[in-house]
Structures are given as C-alpha cells and as structure tokens.
C-alpha cells in the first residue's frame, strides 16, 4: 500500500514537473515575442516621427509667411530674408496670443526651426521654438535653402534646421 502511494505521488510530481517546464518554456517564448513586438512598434514609432519631421520641414519651406514671392509666383526652396525677420518678430510679439500660437502649433507642432545663413554672411536666427516640457527624443532635419535679400536682389545660401520633438 505504501509502495503504491509513493508511486502515485512520484507520478503526480512528474506530471506537475512536466507542466511547470511546459509553462516555463511558453512564458520564455511569450516574453521574446512581446519584446520583438515592442521593438517593432518602437521602430515604427521612430519611422512615423521621421516622417513627421520631414513633413514639418516641407511645411516650413512652403509657408506663405516665408516663401519668395515674385508677382504672386513662388520660387521653390527659397526663404525671403525680410519676411523671415518680420515673421520672427510677429511670433515673438504674439507669444501670449493663444489663437496665433494655436494656429502655428497645429501647423508645426512641437518643433524648433532655425534658419542659418552661411553665405555671404553667417547668422543663425531661431524662427520658431516650441519644445514640449518633456520629450524622449529629437529628430533633426537639415536642408540647404536659398535666402533671398530683396534689398540687394541677391540670393544667399542657408540651412534650415527643423528639430521635431517626440
């Protein structure tokens, strides 16, 4: 009787042991799978943020507030220096105007835009600066751009830098 009882107990332990190992393996598999999913999601999130940064750069380059307009025709990839200066002043003056900041926030989001002139002179005015209180990463897009000086009727060379916060 004792022998049969011990045999039953051993069998029970064996079965439990098998199940434990089984679930252990399942859990390891699940952890790996969800980690992979997480990484994939993070990568997708980064791609989406990159896309957003690219779109913000495009929007900044095509803003009517900055574009080079000649008899109502726009020159591509060009920023008017006088408009840049006046738009900068406009945004500074309207820091406390909710409607203005809301309008440009919905257009440009949490970002910083700097237009650096490299030639013929060096200047680095910050046009738009709206970082969030907290952010995990910053995507930086830099693109060469023509800078038109209407007073001299000349084109300078500049770099527009758009930093998008994620």
């Amino acid at each position, binding site marked *: 009787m004792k022998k049969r009882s011990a045999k039953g107990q051993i*069998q029970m332990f*064996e*079965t439990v042991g*098998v199940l434990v190992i*089984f679930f252990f*393996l*399942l859990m390891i*598999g699940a952890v*790996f*799978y969800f980690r*992979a*999913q997480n990484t*994939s999601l993070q990568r997708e999130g980064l791609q989406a943020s990159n896309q957003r940064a690219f779109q913000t750069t495009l929007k900044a380059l095509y803003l009517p507030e900055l574009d080079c307009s000649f008899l109502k025709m726009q020159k591509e*990839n*060009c920023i008017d220096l006088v408009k840049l200066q006046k738009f900068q002043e406009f945004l500074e003056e309207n820091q406390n105007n909710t409607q203005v900041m809301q309008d440009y926030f919905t257009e440009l989001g949490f970002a910083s835009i700097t237009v*650096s002139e*490299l*030639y*013929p002179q060096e200047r680095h005015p910050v046009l738009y600066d709206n970082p969030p209180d907290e952010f995990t990463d910053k995507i930086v897009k*830099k*693109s*060469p*751009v*023509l800078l038109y000086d209407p007073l001299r*009727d*000349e*084109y*300078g*060379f500049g*770099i527009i830098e758009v930093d998008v916060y994620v």
Partner: protein
Amino acid sequence: MSRAQMEIFGLVIIVILVALGLLFAVAVLTKKPTQQVQQMTTSVQGANFLNTLMGTTARDCHGLTVRGLIQDCALADVNWNSASVCADGKSTCERANATISFLLEKTFGEVLKKDYRFFMSGSGAAERISLERGGCPNERESAVRPELVRPGFYINVTLYLCDKTNR
C-alpha cells in the same frame, strides 16, 4: 512517467518551438529594409544642395549666381585665361571654385558632417574645379545635375556624398 506521456509532451514542445520560430521568421521577413531609405535621403540631400548652390549669388561678381559663374567658366580655356573678370579682379572660374569650396566645407564639413566629392564634366575649364573631402572611394550616394551653358552645350555637375571616415 509512461512512454506515451513522454512522447506527447515531446511533440507538444516541438510544436511550440516551431510555432515560435515561424513567428520570429515572419516578423523578420516582413520588415522593410532601412538602408534604401537612408540612401534616398542622402541623394535628395545632394540634389537639394546642388539646386541651392546653383541659385546662390556669388560675392563681388556683378550679381552673378554660381550657375552664371559656371556657365561663363565653361566657355573659357583650360587655363581660365579667357574667363570673365569679377569686380575684385578674380576670374569667374576662380570665384566659382572659391564659392563652391566654401559652401561644400560649411555645409558638409561642418553642419551635415559628411565626406564629399564634387566635380564637373563636359568642359576642360570646368573640369579643373574638383573638390573633395574624403573622396568617397567606397559606398556613396550621388546627385548629378546637367547645367545648360548654351543651346546644345551642357556640363554635368556631380556630387558624391558618403559617411565621414575616421582620419
């Protein structure tokens, strides 16, 4: 444990392992390659640079843009002797060389931190303007832009870009 139980358990383990393996395989195989996207960005960057460069007005040269300087230089002789002269006494070829060199160094050397090779073909005088930083002998992306000098006469402006090498 009976033999049958052991066998069934073994089968179950195999099924689970195969299923997990398939899942990972599907996840890996369906990922888009990122290398292509990066290469396209670099080519666009090169094209953007050339486009902007051509439209830039050069200093002290009668309001000519870099395009205008290159067009004038392309018609000169190989020694740049017959090129037009800017307000500061330099030839259009010298002015083009200096401006392009400055902008390449500022843009890719300092700001974007990339190695480059810039050169032109189609005219002996223009071919003398050849600038590089690192040279991009290996993997690189390129942007090429034909510039019209006069009807039927084009020169090709080429820019290679690559990641900075350790020097």
